[in-house]
């Protein structure tokens, strides 16, 4: 529905404004709007599960900030503020990012980068990274299976070890896949110093204009807030 460039802009905007922005004034309107954008997008593209998870987590974090923070004290209060505050601020950005990755094909992503006239030195590594998200998820799942079979579970009292067990095989297989992937892409002419063409259709439409307006207003508000 949206152009990949708009989606990227939305990710950057919601992350920076929600994390960096203060409260009060125009932010009282802008923050809820930016928070609602990912939900709206999830609903429009039929990603019901993502919509439900996002809404639930955000509601809890938000409710926590309002109701739990005033009634707790000391260390508990600190934990509640940290957790709820983090979730409430980071969730929209993360949700927007996952929307970007899940609804954009690699080909569209590359087309977007070419339209933005990014040099190949930047656009190729970025698209490889983009291609890598689903692969990492898949590998992560397979390693999770292996860990469950070995009886390596959380609660074993060694969180650092857990991380190591998860990350080492993940790194190994990602490096291997990455290497083979690059080899395959190179034999098919990736990186040729000629204008790359693209068959997928991307371009700005009405929705993009609306989304960009939101982004522009939010960023201006953020800047004004920082200046004053």
């Amino acid at each position: 529905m949206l152009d990949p460039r708009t989606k990227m802009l939305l990710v950057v905007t919601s992350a920076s404004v929600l994390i960096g922005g203060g409260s009060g004034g125009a932010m009282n309107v802008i923050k809820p709007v930016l928070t609602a954008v990912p939900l709206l997008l999830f609903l429009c593209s039929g990603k019901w599960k993502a919509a439900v998870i996002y809404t639930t987590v955000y509601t809890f974090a938000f409710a926590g900030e309002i109701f739990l923070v005033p009634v707790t004290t000391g260390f508990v209060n600190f934990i509640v503020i940290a957790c709820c505050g983090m979730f409430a601020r980071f969730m929209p950005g993360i949700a927007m990012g996952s929307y970007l990755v899940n609804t954009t094909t690699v080909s569209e992503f590359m087309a977007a980068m070419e339209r933005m006239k990014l040099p190949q030195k930047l656009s190729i590594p970025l698209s490889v990274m983009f291609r890598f998200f689903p692969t990492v998820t898949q590998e992560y799942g397979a390693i999770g299976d292996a860990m469950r079979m070995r009886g390596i579970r959380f609660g074993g009292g060694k969180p650092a070890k857990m991380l190591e067990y998860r990350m080492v095989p993940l790194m190994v297989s990602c490096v291997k896949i990455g290497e083979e992937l690059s080899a395959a892409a190179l034999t098919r002419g990736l990186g040729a110093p000629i204008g790359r063409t693209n068959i997928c259709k991307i371009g700005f439409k009405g929705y993009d204009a609306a989304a960009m307006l939101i982004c522009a207003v939010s960023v201006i508000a953020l800047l004004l807030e920082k200046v004053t």
Partner: protein
Amino acid sequence: MIEFKDLRFCYTGEDGTSGLKRINLHIRKGEAVLLCGESGCGKTTLTRLVNGLIPHYYEGTLSGEMRVCGESIQDTPLYDLAKTVGSVFQNPRSQFFNVDTTSELAFGCENLGMREGEVLKRVAQTADELSLKPLLGRSIFKLSGGEKQKIACGCVSALGPGIIVLDEPTSNLDMRSVNDLQSIIAGWKAEGKTILIAEHRLYFMQGIADRVLYMRDGEIREEYTGEEFYKMPPSFFRERGLRSLALTRLNGCGACADSEKKWLTVKNVQFSYSRGERLLDIPFAELPENGVIAVIGHNGAGKTTFVRSLCGLLRKDRSILEYQGDICKARKRLDSCYMVMQDVNHQLFSESVLDEVLMSMEKQDEKSAESILEALDLLSFKQTHPMALSGGQKQRIAIASALASRRSILVFDEPTSGLDLRHMEEVAESIRELQKQGKTIFIVTHDPELILSCTTHILHIEKGRIWGNYPLDEVGRAKMMEFFAGDLLGKEVCYDF
């Protein structure tokens, strides 16, 4: 078309055992050449020279001369070679740049800057020629191995290069998919393309290969015409560590099914994706305890899902395994079953081989860990990092940790895909050894040679249901062969039982 003169190559950082020594080779236009030989003989390296990945991507020291279409490969950048040489690789997981099939077919043409109309025309034409229409617009992650390899061939066809290089393309395929690949390759040959293919499976190139090169230790040792090669007696292949040509040439020396035995039962194995039809539905099955059970069926039949359920890896799994009088639910099976995964890298976690085994023990006991390693021929590597070892050794480490954790049911997911004869026999040997120790073993496989050399029972799954469940005696063997041969009917190779 392709010309090598006194070519030597050695990968950077290696002692030269895996490189090439003095290759002299001339491949004419329109010729189909099959490269065979044991793992590590230099087949893959040779294919990488033709498609330019050596020296442009994989580094090493190179001497001698090589030309493709008259142009020196050293001086031709990869993106120019892309127009003349197309490549299909072994691992279908890692050769696609896009996630959806249509973009993937267009990818090569886009890179070379063809106009949009031309790209679309070529994609449509390729889809038509290779009958890829049903696969268009789908996610790569939802295709079976055979379908992925077809798309990989499509990507090559769309670019229309004169030379096509294939590096062990059938490693992960069932026989039916191998046949599809066979007809694609035959089609290319008919179009006059020059084909170079490195393979362990040899039968499907009969009638296509004009020339067969046998490699060993980085050299081309022997050279045959296709006709000569496919008439050789079975002993010829055995001596060279090559896989059998055809099913008829296989003679089962495997463990025979014994008559008195206990049974384990699986009940109520069901699985479906969140939306869509039921993928797996096995209400009841009885299988021999302490048997070696081959789980066979086509790509996508539900074999892997079945063994995942067996190991307790599926979520919301209500199935039950009755084993040695115990009723095991999914949760409990996580502790009594163990799977040696197809990509064994996923299941090695620690810094040394010994640690890997110790970690699996309930009470860490170095003595017994060492005896397990000794039995698997791994003791001399006990302080080595698992990732530094070869594929077969890694597989044995996984077996060692299963033994250390006293699992009684072991599952192997395609343990011999892409292995040569010697390595396949090593795997079969380990499996027979495990059976002697009283384990029950399941093997998901497409490899009739492996089945004949170590299994006792067949479980045939098709479309998520059991199609056959029989011991591998005389009758069972014929039935099993019929399954594998059924896929080959109507092909040039003929099979008489």
